[in-house]
């Protein structure tokens, strides 16, 4: 690794990460049936070769449940990160280009959303949408755009003074066209990195709010549901119910975080000299 080309290493890592995440997502969808299948002859088994992650008090295979939960988390994470990323892009650009009044309103909204602790806001939105899948997606998507929107706003405000933007303006190019042709391409790398780095937060908050009971319903094998169910069995020594699903979630989130770092390295060649 040490002597290799850093950009190539980054690309190789990114491809590996994408393959792993896709494999987890796909196998989770395939294992959804197995995740809810009960077998009372084989309940409370500690991890062994037969059941890799052990089984729970209903004889459900924890390996299948973990994979299904991860798959659900990844899908929700991708969906919410994309939705709030696009909201951040639109609002950030609007705040920076549509004049001071619009800027004041959007900045005020950003402060407002940032003022309520994330998990509380996700809870509230989830309640407003009647909990369940829609509640989680809406909650996480609505609470994660402000930080990225702020970054984009700052970036565009700086960009407004760039000579080529000023020139385009003086030449009479319409505002919309300036945004589309000149500003969007410039902030695209930053936007993509920011969006990838939203995944970890989105996944963690989804798991958290589900754990609290505001998210996905308890029939679904989500990681938050698995962990909150395991709480009742910890004191009797069934550590595997909590350890493996949580550790697997940490690994998936880590993959996303590191992937974000590598994308930054690829998108910003100057940082490769660090």
């Amino acid at each position, binding site marked *: 690794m040490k002597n290799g080309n850093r950009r190539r290493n980054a690309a190789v890592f990114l491809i590996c990460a994408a393959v792993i995440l896709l494999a987890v997502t796909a196998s989770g969808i395939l294992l959804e049936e197995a995740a809810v299948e009960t077998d009372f002859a084989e309940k409370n088994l500690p991890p062994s070769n037969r059941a890799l992650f052990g089984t729970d008090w209903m004889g459900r295979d924890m390996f299948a449940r973990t994979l299904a939960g991860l798959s659900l988390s990844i899908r929700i994470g991708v969906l919410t990160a994309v939705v709030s990323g696009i909201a951040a892009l639109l609002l950030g650009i609007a705040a920076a280009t549509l004049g001071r009044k619009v800027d004041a309103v959007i900045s*005020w909204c950003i*402060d*407002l959303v*940032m*003022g*309520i*602790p*994330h*998990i*509380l806001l996700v*809870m*509230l*939105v989830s*309640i*407003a*949408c*009647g*909990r369940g899948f829609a509640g989680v997606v809406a909650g996480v998507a609505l609470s994660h755009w402000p930080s990225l929107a702020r970054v984009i706003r700052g970036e565009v405000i700086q960009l407004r003074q760039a000579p080529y933007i000023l020139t385009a303006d003086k030449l009479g190019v319409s505002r919309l066209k300036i945004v589309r042709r000149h500003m969007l391409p410039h902030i695209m790398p930053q936007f993509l990195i920011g969006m990838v780095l939203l995944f*970890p937060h989105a996944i*963690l908050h989804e*798991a*958290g709010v589900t*754990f*609290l*009971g*505001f998210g996905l319903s308890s029939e679904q094998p989500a990681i938050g549901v698995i*962990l909150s169910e*395991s*709480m009742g069995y*910890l*004191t009797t*020594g069934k*550590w595997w119910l*909590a*350890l493996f699903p*949580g550790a697997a*979630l*940490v690994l998936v*989130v*880590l993959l996303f*975080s*590191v992937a974000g770092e590598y994308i930054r390295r690829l998108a910003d060649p100057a940082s490769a000299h660090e």
Partner: protein
Amino acid sequence: MRHRLEFTGKKLFRMGVLLLGVSLVTFLLMCASPLDPLQTNVGQTALGSMSPEQVEKLEAYWGVGIPPAQRYIGWLWDVCHGDFGTSLLYRQPVLEVVGERLANSAGLMFFAWVISGVLGLALGVAAGAFRGRWQDRLIRGYCLVITSTPAFWLAILLLLIFSVWLGWLPIGLAVPAGTDASSVTLADRLAHAVLPALTLGITGVANIALHTREKMVDVMESDYVLFARARGESARSAVLRHGLRNVILPGITLQGASVSEIIGGSVLVEQVFSYPGLGQAAVTAGLGSDMPLLLGITVITAAIVFAGNLAADLVYGAVDPRIRKGAAGR
């Protein structure tokens, strides 16, 4: 001095308007909820066996059927008179519930806040100073793993290790179960608070350390550090005299902003340890559609968050001579 007061006044006004916004948004979200408070708390079967008069009484108690605008204005009017309403689940004034819960949580949060601030700053400075070496890699690796770990899972792990496996610490609650309030000692309370506080502290450190490291790297590459080194100052002195001082400034802002994260984390962590704090009350209120309590908790939490940011702004102004002078010139 006058411009400082003016600045504070402006910030306070903005804070007030934001709080009003928070309460309105929270209220609207709760009104939009399709969850019927009667269904969630009384249950379908119990409702079916009740007489229409009883159901009507319950509906009046939970405030079903009053138009939202009227309810919000009524609530706002009462709040202006210092009355946040009565919690429907606890049957106590909201302020009392929040005060009691906040007193339980405050210790946890304060401890976690201080630990994450001091340790985060120290680790961030160390990582920045040893940039690229094994110390930096170790600290960065730790931060990366911790930021990718859900706080509640970390809490479960600590619970498994220290309470179930080693048996050193109690499993949950704030005081030993089944004892008189008078016979609870301070040691009991501390033993129950150690794990939640530790969890919050561990998770809080990572974010602050990572941001501090970025700043520290910038500072160490600056001209003034280069000049200091060229003049013969040791690396140690350059870090302590030039690095640390310049990193403390953004550190203050970070510390003010971390209040929000710690409160958010405490919601999850208190749930794991069944610790009767503010976060647990919020979850109970949310699950039980206890509108006045959840509204009160959200508004008061937001006020604490805004106060944290305001305090950071004020301290920043007092500590940084550039801002002090800059404001005086205006």
